[in-house]
C-alpha cells in the first residue's frame, strides 16, 4: 500500500504569538516549530497501515527551509521518504494554491491513501485536505476518528453531534485526521538517526508545474481584541450584590 501523509510545520501550541506591528504576520523570533498535531495523527495512521499492509509512506510538506525538520520528525517516526515543496511564492499562500502544489507532487508518486490533518492549528482554515482531493479527483472523508481498510475501500468513523457516521469510500481517497484517531508514537533513537539519511526531494512550484496565483490572501494579521476589564460588584449585603449581578447579567451582558 502506498501511503502519503501531508504535514505542516506550525508554531508550538504553547508558543507566545506576537503579531508584527505592521500586521504582515507574526513575529517568528523565539518560536518553537512543531508538526501540526492533527497531521501527526495522519502520520501515525499511515505508519500503522504500513505496518499492517506493507508499502511506503511518503511525507509531503509545503514550507520554508525549516519545514525540513518536521519532515525529518515524520521520517524518524518511521516514514520512508519526503517531498519538501519549498518556494517563497507559496509562503502564506491560500489553501487552493497549497493544495495545488501538494496535488502536483502527489500525482507524481503512487498513492492509495492520503492523510491530512483536519486543519492546521496556525491558520485554522481546514481546507487543504478537501481541495487536494478535488485536485486529484478522488473522494475525501474528513474528521476521521477510526479507519479500517477492507480490500480496495476503507470504512471510517466520523463523529457528529449526538451520533457517529460510518462512511465507506473507495481508494484512493483523502482522509483528514481528527483527534482520537490514534496516539502518535514517540520516535526511537535509531529511527531519529536513520531519518537523517532518508531521501527528501526538494521541489519548487515551477518544478512541479504549478503557477502560484492566490485567489484569497491574508490582508492583515491583527492582535486579538483586548479583553474588556472585569467588573467587581460592591455592596454590604450578599443579597444586594446578587440582585446587582442578576441585573447586570440581564441588562449589560444580556445573557439571561
Amino acid at each position, binding site marked *: 500500500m502506498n501511503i502519503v501523509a501531508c504535514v505542516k510545520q506550525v508554531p*508550538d501550541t*504553547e*508558543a*507566545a504569538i506576537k503579531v508584527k506591528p505592521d500586521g504582515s504576520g507574526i513575529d517568528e523570533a*523565539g518560536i*518553537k516549530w*512543531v508538526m501540526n498535531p492533527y497531521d501527526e495523527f495522519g502520520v501515525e495512521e499511515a505508519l500503522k497501515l504500513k505496518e499492517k499492509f506493507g508499502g511506503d509512506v511518503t511525507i509531503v510538506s509545503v514550507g520554508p527551509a525549516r519545514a525540513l525538520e518536521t519532515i525529518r520528525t515524520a521520517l524518524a517516526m518511521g516514514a520512508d521518504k519526503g517531498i519538501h515543496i519549498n518556494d517563497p511564492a507559496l509562503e502564506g499562500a491560500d489553501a487552493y494554491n497549497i493544495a495545488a502544489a501538494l496535488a502536483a507532487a502527489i500525482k507524481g508518486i503512487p498513492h492509495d491513501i492520503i492523510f491530512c490533518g483536519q486543519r492546521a492549528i496556525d491558520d485554522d482554515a481546514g481546507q487543504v485536505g478537501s481541495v487536494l482531493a478535488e485536485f486529484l479527483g478522488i473522494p475525501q472523508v474528513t474528521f476521521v476518528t477510526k479507519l479500517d481498510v477492507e480490500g480496495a475501500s476503507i470504512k471510517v468513523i466520523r463523529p457528529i453531534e449526538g451520533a457517529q457516521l460510518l462512511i465507506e469510500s473507495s481508494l484512493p481517497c483523502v482522509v483528514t485526521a481528527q483527534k482520537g484517531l490514534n*496516539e502518535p*508514537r*514517540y*520516535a*526511537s*533513537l*535509531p*529511527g*531519529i*538517526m536513520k531519518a537523517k539519511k532518508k531521501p527528501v526531494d526538494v521541489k519548487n512550484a515551477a518544478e512541479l508545474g504549478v503557477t502560484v496565483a492566490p485567489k484569497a490572501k491574508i490582508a492583515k494579521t491583527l492582535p486579538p481584541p483586548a479583553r474588556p476589564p472585569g467588573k*467587581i460588584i*460592591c*455592596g454590604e449585603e450578599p443579597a444586594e450584590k446578587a440582585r446587582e449581578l442578576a441585573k447586570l447579567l440581564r441588562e449589560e451582558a444580556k445573557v439571561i
Partner: protein
Amino acid sequence: MELSKFSVGNEGREVFWNAENFEGLLFAFTAVAMAIFAYGIYRRWQMWTAIGKPEVRNDQIKERIKLLLKNGLFQIKTFRDIYPGIMHGLILFGFIGLLFGAAFDATEFHVGEPYGFPFLIGKFYLIFSFLMEVFGLFVLAGVFMALDRRYITKPERLGYKGEPDNTPDDAIVLLLLGGIILTGFVIEALRIHVTNPPWEVWSFAGYTLAKAFAGVDNNTARILHKVMWWTHTFMALGFIAYIPYSRLVHMITTPANHFMASLKPVGNIEPIRDFETAESFGAGQLEDFTWKQVFDSDACTRCGRCQDGCPAYLSGKALSPKKVVQDLKTYWLERAPMIAAAKKAAGKAAEGTAPEMPAATKAMVGEVIDLHELWACTNCMYCMEHCSSSIEHVPKIVNMRQYKVLTEADFAPELQLTYRNMENNSNPWGVGSHLRADWAKELGVKTLAEDPNVEYLFYVGCSGSFDERGKKVSMAFAKILQTAGVSFGILGTEEGCCGDSAMRGGNEYLSQTLMQTNIEVMNGYGVKKIICTCPHGYNTLKKDYPHFGGNYEVYHHTEIIANLIAAGKISLKKPVDGMFTYHDSCFLGRYNNIYDQPRKILAAIPGMKLAEMDRKLDKSFCCGAGGARMWMEEHDGERINNMRTDQAIAVNATNIAVACPFCLTMLTDGIKAREKEEKMASLDIAEVVWRAMGLEEEKPSADVCAPTE
C-alpha cells in the same frame, strides 16, 4: 591418664593426637578438595569474563584497597545493620580466627616439632586454646542467629512479598558451618576425656563437653574420636570444595565487588557517547551491560537490605532490588556457560573470525525483568547506599530504561508527553518557555544578559519557574539572597530543563540535548558558581554536566542559607509555631550527603520544635518522585507520598520541611490525600527561613470596593 611429654608449667597437647598414619589420606583428600575448588573457580572465572562490555575497575588502587579493607575485611557496610552485622561478623571473624588456629597447628606439626622448636606450649598454648574456644563459639553463635533469622524469625527481607526465598544451599551452608564447629568441639572433648590434662580447663568448651563422656571407656572414646575427626575433616574439606558452587562464592565475589566499587560520584550514569552509529541503546540484553554490571549479581548474598527501604517494594510495587539482581543472576547462570563455551570454540577456530554467540532466547527487559519492576524505581539510592556487597542497582535500571525508551520507544504515554514537552518547551509540563522567568518579574532579579558580573547564577529549574508552589520557593529564596546582599542573577528565558528526569527516565538523548543547551548558555556567560533550589538540578549540574564540558561549583540553597546564617548575614527573628519534621530528599541526602545543613537551618529558627521521623538521614524514605516517577502515574500498590506523609503524621508533625520541589509537591499531595490540609503543611526550608526573617509581606486582601480618591 596417658603418659605425656606435657606437664603443668609445660602445657601443650599432641597435635593430631589419635590420628596415626593419617597424612597420606589427608593430603590426598585435601588435594581432591582443592582440585574441585580450583575447577569451580576456573568455571566461574570463565562465566565472569564471558559477558559484558569493557569497563575499568582497577584504577586508583589505593582507594580500592581502602574499600576492600573497610568493607571486605572490617565489614563496615555489613555492620551498618546491627543484628545481621553481628551475626555475620561472628561467623566471619570466628572463622578467620580458627583458620589461624589450624595454620598454627599445622606449622607446629610439620615445622615446629620436627625441627625442634615447638611453640604451642606453655602460656602461649593456654591462651591459644582459650582463644580457639572463643572463636569456635563465635561461629556457633553466628550460625544459630542465622538459623533463627532464616527459619524462625523470617524477616520480610529474606523473601519476596511474604514468601521466603530460601534455597537448599542456605541450609547446607549453615549446617556445614555449624557441623564443623560442633564436631571440632566433640573431638576436643574426647581427647580431653582420654588424656585429661588439668590445664585443659583453658579449653573451656571442650573441657565442659568432656564431662558428657564421663562413662565412656578410653577405647570407645578413641574410636569415636577417630570417626569424629574424619567427619570434621571431610566437612571442612567439603566446605572448601563447595565454595565456588554455592552462596559461599560470596567469600570471593563480595570482597572483589567492594574492591571494584564505583569511585564515581554517587548516582553517576555513564553517558552514551555514540548516538550516530549505534543500532541499539541501553541494556536490552546482558551483553549490553559492562562485565562489572554482570559480575554484581554474583556478589549478591540475598541479604535483602536493599529491599528493606525500597519505597517501591514497601508500597507494594513489583520491584525489589534484590529480585532484580537475583533474576539477572539466574539469567546469567543460564547464558554465561553457553557464551563461555561459544567463545572457547571460537578461540579454537581461525583467528579473526567473529565468534558466533548463542542467540538470546528471551528479552531481558520485559521477560527476565518485568516492566512494572523496571519503571517502579524512584532512583532513591537506598539500595545502593545500604547494599553490603556494593552492588550498583540504579545504573542497571537506568540502562534498561534507556533500552525501552531509546531503542524501542516503548514506554508510558504520560512519559512520552513529558519528553515532548521537554523537547518543545524545555520543561516537563510543556508551559511556554517564554514564561520561564515570570516569577521574578516583580522582584527586580536581573538576568545574566542584563548583568553578567554576579557571583552566583541562581539556576531556578522547571519547578521553581513554572510550578505555582515552586515559584513561591524561588521568590522566597531570591528575597533571602537579596536581603543578605548576595550577588546573583538568573538566566531568565535562556534557562532550560536540567535534564535529570529525562536521564533517569532513560531518555539519554534528550537529557544530553538539554544539558548541552544549558552548558552552552552558562559557559557563554562564564558562569562559575551556581545555586539550585532543586536537588535534581543540583545533582545533575554538579555531577553530569562535567561529562559535557560544564564545570561549575554547584551549591544547594540549603548550603547557601546555612552559610548565611552562620556568617550572621541573615537574622531569624520571627518565631515559628507548630511541630516540624524534616524530610530528607534522596538527591540531597544519599546522593550528596547533605543532611546537616537543612537541620542546622531549622535549628536556628526561633521557636523551632523538630521531631525526626523513623526513616531519616541515609535511611530516609523517598517521596516517590525521583527517577522520572514525578511524571508517571502510580497504578500499583499504595502511593509512596501518602506513606511518607503517614510517617510524618506519626511524629505529630504539623509542618513537613523539605528542600526539594518534587518532595514539596508529593508531600503536599499526601497531606491532601490524608485530609490534613487544615492541620498540616509542607514547606520548603527557604519558605520557613523567609518567614522567620519577617520578609513575608502581610498582604491585606485587596479592598477593591474601597472608595477611590
